[in-house]
């Protein structure tokens, strides 16, 4: 079976979970001998695609398309990216660029042979639909986030329409969680029968013990401070403001705590000034965007990882924390809370509850130890191999349905 996949650039040339998910899933699929044609938007004037290295000697064929689309593009962020460029190939607006990418997708579909089309995230749904029209092959759209996760109730209607069209025209929809499936059913009116849940995962072997880097946090630890960690984009969706409010409560009970925010994003300045106005600036550290060994070191030094997301379709970061042996406290408004049982859970808006649970972990070494040990064990089972296995069974289902109709 051969899959035409519309995906995204892998780490480290990405920001956020979509690239991580594409890497994990395609690598696991390739290891299970699935043949892939991997199409991705790519700015050709940058470095050689990282994927070439990842997929050297495998049955994955790369088809980069020169495009300005990047994961989590918004109309505004696209405009900023576009305005700095002189190149004439890119469209002058996000939706126009999505259309241009769709045309390229259709052209690739016309030249290649494959059995199933699998498109990740709405930015590539258009390309998936074009490929379906050209080839007549079944289309899977893989929903990693919806417009409601990104924008709350202030959705961009045009983006919503593109998402809805992609899901309606698709033969099968993959949702990264039951939480996301529910949104797709309720907000997009898609039949639940057409939607399969495939959780994201991690590759535990990617997180082997590392030589810890000296990062300053160890000095705080030596002084008897506890470390509570937030990792993610500093945007409305991730709930950094709730994290700060909980921090304020925690500090009124236990001043010996440092709150670390690792990430960057459009709310960064707002969050820095919020910390100041709450009077806790001296206890909140902004670590910037961390990755690799740097990030693993921070996980390992932290006493607790918190994911206070307002709406999180899945949320891979808590799995990374857990595999590093950090206890996790996650928002109930997340897909990952379905997958992790050995985690503390809280409604993102329930600041008191969040603070109570943070303090419980910091005050009770037995709770810390129990969550650490059980979480680390549990997360081993949430692998990309498992996600790939489910995708393959969906491929087979669609493939045999196509055979029946033929």
């Amino acid at each position: 079976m051969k899959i035409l996949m519309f995906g995204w650039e892998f780490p480290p040339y990405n920001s956020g979970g979509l690239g991580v998910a594409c890497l994990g899933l395609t690598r696991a699929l390739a290891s299970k001998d699935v043949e892939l044609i991997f199409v991705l938007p790519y700015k050709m004037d940058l470095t050689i695609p990282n994927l070439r290295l990842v997929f050297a000697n495998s049955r994955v064929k790369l088809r980069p398309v020169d495009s300005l689309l990047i994961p989590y593009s918004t109309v505004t962020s696209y405009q900023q990216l576009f305005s700095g460029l002189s190149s004439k190939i890119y469209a002058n607006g996000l939706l126009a660029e999505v259309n241009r990418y769709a045309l390229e997708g259709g052209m690739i579909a016309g030249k290649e042979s494959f059995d199933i089309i699998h498109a990740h995230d709405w930015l590539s749904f258009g390309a998936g639909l074009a490929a379906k029209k050209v080839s007549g092959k079944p289309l899977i759209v893989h929903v990693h986030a919806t417009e409601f996760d990104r924008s709350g109730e202030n959705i961009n209607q045009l983006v919503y329409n593109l998402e809805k069209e992609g899901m309606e025209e698709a033969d099968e929809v993959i949702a990264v969680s039951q939480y996301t499936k529910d949104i797709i059913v309720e907000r997009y009116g898609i039949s639940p029968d057409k939607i399969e849940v495939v959780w994201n995962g991690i590759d535990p072997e990617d997180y082997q013990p590392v030589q810890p880097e000296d990062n300053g946090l160890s000095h705080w630890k030596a002084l008897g401070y506890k470390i509570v960690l937030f990792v993610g984009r500093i945007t409305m969706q991730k709930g950094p403001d709730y994290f700060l409010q909980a921090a304020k409560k925690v500090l009124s009970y236990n001043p010996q705590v440092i709150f670390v925010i690792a990430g960057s994003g459009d709310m960064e300045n707002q969050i820095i000034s919020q910390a100041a106005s709450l009077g806790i600036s001296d206890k909140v550290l902004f670590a910037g965007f961390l990755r690799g060994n740097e990030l693993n070191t921070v996980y390992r030094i932290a006493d607790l990882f918190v994911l206070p997301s307002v709406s999180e379709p899945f949320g891979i970061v808590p799995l990374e924390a857990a595999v590093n042996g950090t206890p996790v406290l996650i928002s109930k408004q997340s897909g990952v809370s379905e997958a992790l049982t050995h985690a503390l859970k809280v409604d993102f808006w329930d600041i008191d509850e969040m603070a109570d649970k943070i303090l419980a972990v910091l005050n009770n070494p037995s709770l810390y130890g129990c969550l650490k040990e059980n979480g680390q064990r549990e997360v081993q089972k949430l692998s990309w191999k498992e996600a790939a296995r489910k995708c393959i069974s969906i491929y087979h289902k669609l493939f045999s349905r196509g055979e029946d109709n033929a």
Partner: protein
Amino acid sequence: MPSVCFYFQVHQPFRIKKYRIFDIGQDHQYFEDHSESNLNNKKIFQKVAKKCYLPANEVFYELLQKYPQLKLSFSFSGIFLDACETFYPELLHSFQKLVKTGKVEVLSETYYHSLSFLYSPQEFISQVKMHRQKIKKIFGITPKVFRNTELIYNNDLAKVIEKLGYKGILAEGADHVLGWQSPNFVYQPKGVKKLKLLCKNYQLSDDIAFRFSSKEWGEYPLTAPKFAQWVSAINGNGEVVNLFMDYETFGEHQWEDTGIFKFLTSLPGEILKHPDNNFVTPLEAIAKYQAVAELNVPQFISWADIERDLSAWRSNPIQEDALEKLYSLEKTVINSGDDKLIEDWRRLTTSDHFYYMCTKWWNDGDVHKYFNPYSSPYEAFISFMNVLSDLRLRIDSLKKDYKKGNSKTINLEGGCGL
């Protein structure tokens, strides 16, 4: 032969409400949840009373009228009886009516359904004595047979129980203790003079308690004639079949629509169809049958989980931590002479609190999850530890009062006040 010996455990804990760190020093009503949650003790109690206790009592009362040979035994935790008096006096009357038939034995246990034997012999004895008084007060009788919380048992317990004047004790008929021996005989615990031991026939007991409605079970559906046949088959190779289970089996663990009450209604008649079969209470069983052998149980056993050990309450760091910190307050609390403080502390000794903190099998969705009113073991631990912090503050403020000379209580610094 064989004699069928029924024992039903009747217990409801006082569950701790959601108690946050912000409540410490502000709120001492640890067990008062008035929400719609499963931590609302009154709500749960009344629900279980209607689904299980009242209808089951009715069935048994009628059966006792119909079959004069039928015998039963119950063990009530002291706090169950407390809850009964507060939440459902009518239910208490219903149990009293059963006991008045003279065919229902009441067993002895710790008042608070606690693990105190594992932590403090002194507290254990206090709770057993409190329970004895409560049973005397409610039912007008003094139990002669003891059963420890969740059938936790070992040689040392048997020795203590004999010293307290009991004639018999119950235990799980665990394979790793009985080996090739059958649970269907009376045994003598190692190291005692007269005390006799009844071992639960877990196969037959769990056929009713756990497997009754399981469609995956090869014997489904279980009928009264079939079950009576299994009992009769023991004729010739056993003397007493100990069917020990939670009373909540009837209507709560096995819902009415599984047919459990119908099964129960026809069971005594089916068992009595075989002329050699009869019913006994635990005390009658040990009077009627000689101990066939000594049973050596150096390690603790219980009737919980497949392990039949202490791991349901003591298998992870949060359980051990909570138990250790709780019992470290014992002497100060007991010696404070503050009745409310002592009562609150003792309610915290109830084994259920630690069962809820069990993480064994948690993600496999097993019985621990089914019986857990908290959304996770960690939630159970957090509320418990916050309550314990509040309890410590209360102790501290008593000490301050004492130093100021405002208190009539004595001996707050530990030491023996009894």
